[in-house]
């Protein structure tokens, strides 16, 4: 074989190998025992911002210092000829958090001892895992809550209803009470006077009120964990929105955090709207999540003047449009573009799950074939727009 031809062949193979390395979605680096770089692929250049030419001969730790802890193991991997893997390494790049996996393999070739490092961006994978774990947790919690509520309802009923029975059994309106009082030789009027004087009627009334309150809390909690089949109904939007506003106003958790009485809720409903098919409970959740978000923004802004949320409806090209417009502080563009991402939250840990708006987005777009968009002017307010197919049958 002529030498020139052989050289061409080698060149072709080399190019093919480089092409393969550059096509892979992984960052690939070959280093020697001291961690000095001897080969990198395109993905590495993009990630580190250092060109292959400049990277060669440099210590890998200085090029991607975020992985310094893991890269210290290169020597050990080569000596022991045993690969090492590191999973879910958290890296911050600007405002963005990403997860990486990093693997170091001893290179089994003759000559100098080398190692190959492979780094993958597994952010998406980790997010999906988290969503699934969270969903599973919510299903478990929901199931537990539903089962527990049923168990609590009976004793709670006995508490409330027996308090009612006590009230009735000391009332003078029931003949059996008078008869029993007569049999034991007391006057029912005197018994009532005593109970009144010692505040016992008030205690009984408090037992009933507390029971009703506990029962309402359970009902609210159950609202989102119902496991019955979602029912699609054709609804009047104005009525549905009014009911949701009532629900919001009575939501215990929401009342605790923000006072809706301090917010001017303006209704600008179109006088005639086509009916809309929806799963009412799901869409209630959508509106509640958006309203909750708006209320929180308004309460944080602490600005002068009236806080206002406007609910607007109108029909447009066969779509029913609902706008939820607040005069809060507005949202920056960098946040606005990510607002529907699962687990994206600007709230402190523990305050928001970062799921509210992503759940709303999924319900509107996937469940109801509609759209959910947001526009905002910092300093002037934010408007969420929901478009749902009007009158159409779902599914």
């Amino acid at each position, binding site marked *: 074989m002529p030498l020139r031809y052989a050289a061409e062949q080698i060149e072709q193979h080399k190019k093919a190998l480089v092409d393969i390395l550059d096509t892979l979605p992984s960052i690939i680096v070959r280093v020697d025992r001291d961690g000095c770089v001897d080969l990198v692929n395109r993905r590495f250049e993009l990630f580190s911002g250092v060109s292959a030419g400049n990277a060669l001969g440099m210590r890998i730790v200085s090029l991607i210092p975020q992985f310094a802890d893991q890269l210290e193991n290169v020597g050990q991997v080569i000596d022991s000829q045993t690969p090492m893997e590191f999973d879910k390494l958290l890296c911050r790049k600007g405002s963005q958090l990403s997860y990486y996996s990093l693997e170091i393999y001893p290179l089994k070739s003759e000559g100098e001892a080398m190692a190959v490092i492979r780094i993958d961006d597994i952010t998406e994978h980790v997010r999906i895992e988290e969503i699934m774990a969270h969903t599973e947790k919510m299903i478990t919690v929901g199931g537990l809550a539903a089962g527990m509520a049923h168990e609590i309802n*009976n*004793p709670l*009923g*006995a508490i409330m209803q*027996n308090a009612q*029975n006590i009230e009735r059994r000391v009332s003078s309106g029931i003949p059996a009470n008078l008869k029993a009082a007569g049999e034991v030789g007391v006057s029912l009027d005197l018994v009532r006077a005593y109970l009144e004087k010692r505040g016992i009627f008030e205690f009984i009334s408090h037992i009933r009120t507390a*029971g009703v309150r506990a029962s309402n809390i359970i009902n609210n909690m159950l609202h989102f964990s119902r496991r*019955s089949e979602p029912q699609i109904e054709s609804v009047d939007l104005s009525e549905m929105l009014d009911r949701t506003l009532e629900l919001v106003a009575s939501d215990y958790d929401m009342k605790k955090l923000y006072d809706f009485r301090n917010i001017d809720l303006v209704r600008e409903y179109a006088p005639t709207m086509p009916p809309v098919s929806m799963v009412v409970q799901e869409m209630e959740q959508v509106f509640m999540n958006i309203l909750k978000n708006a209320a929180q923004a308004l309460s944080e802004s602490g600005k002068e003047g009236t806080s206002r949320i406007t609910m607007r409806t109108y029909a447009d090209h066969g779509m029913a449009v609902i706008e939820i417009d607040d005069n809060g502080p507005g949202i920056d563009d960098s946040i606005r573009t990510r607002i529907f991402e699962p687990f994206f939250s600007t709230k402190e840990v523990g305050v928001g799950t970062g799921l509210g708006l992503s759940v709303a987005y999924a319900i509107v777009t996937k469940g109801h074939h509609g759209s959910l968009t947001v526009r905002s002017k910092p300093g002037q307010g934010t408007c969420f727009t929901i478009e749902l197919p009007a009158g159409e049958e779902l599914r």
Partner: protein
Amino acid sequence: MKYSEISILLVDDDEMIRNCICAFLEDEGFMVHQASSGEEALDSIVSINPTVCISDLRLAGMDGESFIRRACRLCPTTAYLLHTGMDYPLSDELRAIGMTPADVLQKPIHELSTLTRRIVAVATAGGRIG
């Protein structure tokens, strides 16, 4: 109409619930019978032939829905009410015997006079009691 003309069979496996609702209904003046299971209620329902039968949905043994389906064959003129702590959509079978969503009473009943109103409504409907 006198409440004493209305007879009621209450089916619930929770004795505490049975006693407190029975006490209330007796104070109202109704004629009240009770059973702690669907099986026990089926044994006595023909001799009682109640105007209204109120059954819990989740019972030990036969559930409330199966009980009502059998009971209504034995006592077709009785009006049936379901008492449940669950989110229960009325089945087609129970709709077919004339039950409506208003006949499903959500536990816990906050104010027992709502139970009286429902009993009187179903007792007078269909000419059960004049």
